[in-house]
């Protein structure tokens, strides 16, 4: 069955392409390889999605070795959605990359950059489709290590400390996660998610399960930059090359969030997260607190990349709120926001890359006159910003709607109020940018139209259009998210 091999291809293709790039290292050729990987993976992820919609879950044993011993890939509608996001953001990121990287990375290291990028994509894909917790760890490390490299390609010397900081945090995260699954293995004798889900319910009263649960959750929380484990993210985003930031913003934390949801709701026994340990309250509280606070911190940032990095932490907060609600509606809202946030944030970071291309800077001061100087780039940032606020006809509005209705469903009107309050804080930092770009005029300078090149604008605008399209017609994203939540929470639709 060829169709079953689809899932393996998602990891195998980039895994083979990466060493190839490392050997060739000619920038143009490596880029072509990376592009081919992107196209193949995007098509593949669509094929997987269609396959699942028709035939249901895909279970694939790598090399024909059956589950407890071999590596198993297991894809259902939840990870198919994430896979789709990651593949397409990767593809658009690669299309965007050459023009953007040209100004930032010396030509001789560009081959390495693409190598690391492909590896990072391999890791993220692997995390998403793995059906066993140890494999998740392996791919987590693959993606983390390559991300450290990617960040260190930044132009500013401070990218090295940023990468090192992320390395320390990432290693701690991986260790926590590894200790957690070690405990689980010692208890159950298996690392396969489906087997774990079967065996853990009998052991629910054992403290070891609780300890394992704690370790796993903390490990993943660091990877997904959930407050208060977010400290690595602002610098990492701020100093990485622009194209890399755009890619990371749309994908890196998303895979970790997915694993978080998968483990807490499916692998650990039903109600373990919400009933037995009641830890969902903590996630909920942390989520909403960080959504409001980190958005407020974003207001005071003078560097656009750092500003939107803080904004990302806040958006992860919203996603955590949905998870913390521990209901189908809540988890659906989280999945939907994962999807929507990838689109809007990648578009914003791509546009910032365009701004950098023209002005050579990403500080807010570089925005002066940008409204007239580069209308298309600025419009992309503006529309992305409006989406972050949650203005109608953008994806952000749909996300807000899902999240607020999920919280009202449980009569958490105060939570609904806080979520909307968060929107207003978001409006404050978005408006700060708008005012500088459109109102702060320099009377001495004659504004000349000087737009970013098309190779940067086109991928950006594909996402901007997607942002509006999915903000008007959310049937696909909404039903996919609901289906994903139903699958993971084991609710028959």
């Amino acid at each position, binding site marked *: 069955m060829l169709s079953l091999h689809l899932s393996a291809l998602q990891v195998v293709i980039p895994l083979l392409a990466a060493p190839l790039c490392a050997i060739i290292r000619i920038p143009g050729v490596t880029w072509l390889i990376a592009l081919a990987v992107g196209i193949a993976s995007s098509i593949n992820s669509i094929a997987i999605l269609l396959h699942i919609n028709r035939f249901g879950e895909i279970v694939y044993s790598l090399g024909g070795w059956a589950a407890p011993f071999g590596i198993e890939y297991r894809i259902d509608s939840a990870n198919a959605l994430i896979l789709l996001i990651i593949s397409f953001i990767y593809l658009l990121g690669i299309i965007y990359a050459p023009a953007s990287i040209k100004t930032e990375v010396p030509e001789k290291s560009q081959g390495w950059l693409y190598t690391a990028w492909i590896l990072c994509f391999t890791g993220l894909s692997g995390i998403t489709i793995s059906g066993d917790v140890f494999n998740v760890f392996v791919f987590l490390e693959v993606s983390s290590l390559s991300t450290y490299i990617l960040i260190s390609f930044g132009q500013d010397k401070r990218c090295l400390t940023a990468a090192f900081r992320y390395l320390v945090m990432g290693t701690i995260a991986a260790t926590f996660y590894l200790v957690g699954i070690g405990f689980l293995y010692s208890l159950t004798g298996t690392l396969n998610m489906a087997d774990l889900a079967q065996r853990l319910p009998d052991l629910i009263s054992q403290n070891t399960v609780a300890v394992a649960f704690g370790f796993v959750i903390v490990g993943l929380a660091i990877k997904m930059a959930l407050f208060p484990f977010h400290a690595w993210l602002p610098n990492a985003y701020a100093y990485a090359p622009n194209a890399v930031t755009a890619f990371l913003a749309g994908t890196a934390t998303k895979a970790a969030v997915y694993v978080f949801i998968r483990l807490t709701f499916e692998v650990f026994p039903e109600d373990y997260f919400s009933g037995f340990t009641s830890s969902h309250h903590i996630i909920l509280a942390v989520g909403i607190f960080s959504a409001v606070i980190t958005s407020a911190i974003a207001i005071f940032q003078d560097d656009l990349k750092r500003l939107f990095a803080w904004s990302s932490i806040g958006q992860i907060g919203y996603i955590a709120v949905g998870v913390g609600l521990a209901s189908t509606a809540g988890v659906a809202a989280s999945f939907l926001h994962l999807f929507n946030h990838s689109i809007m944030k990648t578009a914003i970071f791509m546009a910032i890359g365009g701004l950098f291309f023209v002005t050579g800077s990403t500080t807010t001061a570089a925005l002066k006159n940008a409204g007239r100087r580069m209308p298309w780039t600025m419009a992309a940032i503006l529309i992305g910003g409006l989406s972050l606020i949650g203005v109608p006809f953008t994806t952000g509005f749909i996300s807000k709607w899902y999240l607020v209705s999920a919280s009202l469903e449980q009569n958490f009107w105060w939570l609904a109020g806080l979520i909307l309050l968060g929107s207003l804080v978001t409006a404050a930092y978005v*408006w700060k940018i708008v005012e500088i770009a459109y*109102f702060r005029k320099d009377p001495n300078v004659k504004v000349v139209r000087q737009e970013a090149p098309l190779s940067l604008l086109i991928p950006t605008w594909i996402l901007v259009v997607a942002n509006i399209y999915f903000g008007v017609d959310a049937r696909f994203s909404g039903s996919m998210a609901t289906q994903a939540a139903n699958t993971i929470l084991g609710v028959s639709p």
Partner: protein
Amino acid sequence: MMSASTIQLYCLVAPIVAVVLIVTVGRVFPILYETINASVAVITFLLTLSLYSALGEGTIESMVLFEPFAGVSIALQAEPLGILFAMMASFLWIITSIYSFGYMRGHGETNLARFNIFFAIAISSAMGIALAANGFTLFLFYEVLTLSTFPLVTHAGSDKARRAGRIYLFLLLGTSVGMLLLALIWTWILTGTLDFRAGGILDGDISKTTLNILLVLYVFGIGKAALMPFHRWLPAAMVAPTPVSALLHAVAVVKAGVFSILKVSIYIFGIDLLQELEVHRYLAYAAAFTIVATAIIALRKDNLKARLAYSTIGQLSYIVLGALVANAAGIVGGGLHMLMHGFGKITLFFGAGAILVATHKTEISQMRGIGRRMPVTMITFLIGSIVIVGAPPTGGMWSKWNLLLGAANTTDWLLLAALIVGSLLSALYLLPIAVRAFYHSPDDGNETIKEAPVSILIALIISAAGCIILFFAPDFAFDLMNMITSSE
């Protein structure tokens, strides 16, 4: 023959056609911007008229445009109140376009393309609000209206405009996202629908506390109705050019606010349910307070536009109060006042703009004897003032009369007193302007006639004539409003 259902969509699309024309044809012939808008406005008005006549033949079918996600749709359905609003907005758009031809060019404003484009988008979203079949659609267009008017309010691009824009945006976005959206989603969770239905969709099974909270969220959440303490955006937006003030105060923005409040009272709560809610009375007091307080503030303002802005806030509260007294007369009065105040206030703002263009005067104290120099302007100004006071021979009389009737029906004399005091005060702050303009001689003794450009005068005469025609022929508006109250 187009079906009435599709005409609803054309009402929204027509202004967008104007945008396309401005971008294409207008690029070559910038002189045509206002002409394009005015012609499209005439077409839009004709479309709303055909909706009006279609209504005579029975209910208009709803039209679903999208279903963004399960259970919620973007849909249009024209009902009497919406048609009234749509007719008013599109008609006033015609005269505003004529007016802005003279004003924007006479006053040497720049960036006319941007100005006319966003104006047309604002009208399109006003049509969307007017014809919305459910709360979801209404909210979408409500927000688009806020955002599309922002570049208009900040047209000057100065620091003052930027600050005003900030207040404008944050109060309108803040109230709508923080309260209106919350109320809508809550309603959706409670009832499973957001459709506007005669008799309302919320019913008595829901706890009274929840309903009371919801009503408060709706009334304050619709910040465009400018109920105190969320009124600051309207005086702040004075920095905008006069045609924008007309758009804000008469054509679309504040009218969209009170329209939404009427819509929510009639079709989400239903008048009967509103009656049962304890909080409706307190909200009516808030409106009564706004009426009196703004009238007193208006009295003390020397800047003409500021005085008119506070006057608007007060008059909006008349309509809010009309909705909240929750009886037939109040609703009819509210709907009529939306129309009458629209004509009256647009005349007043046009007058203020005409004075600015012709003499560069903004303060009332400088306007003594100005009637001798600008007789047409000041006579129309007087007519506009009489509408706001609510006296014959203007349409303002009909709406004020019904509002008073509605307040009297509640036998709450405090509300009635507030309405009467509010009207008396409005006579005090508006009439002296026109009277002094004629009875005094100008300070500099110059009495040669110097009116504003012709297109401004044409607009002034049409809108003032409208005020008087509505006194003699208010039947169509009464019919529309009675359709609503009789179906209750």
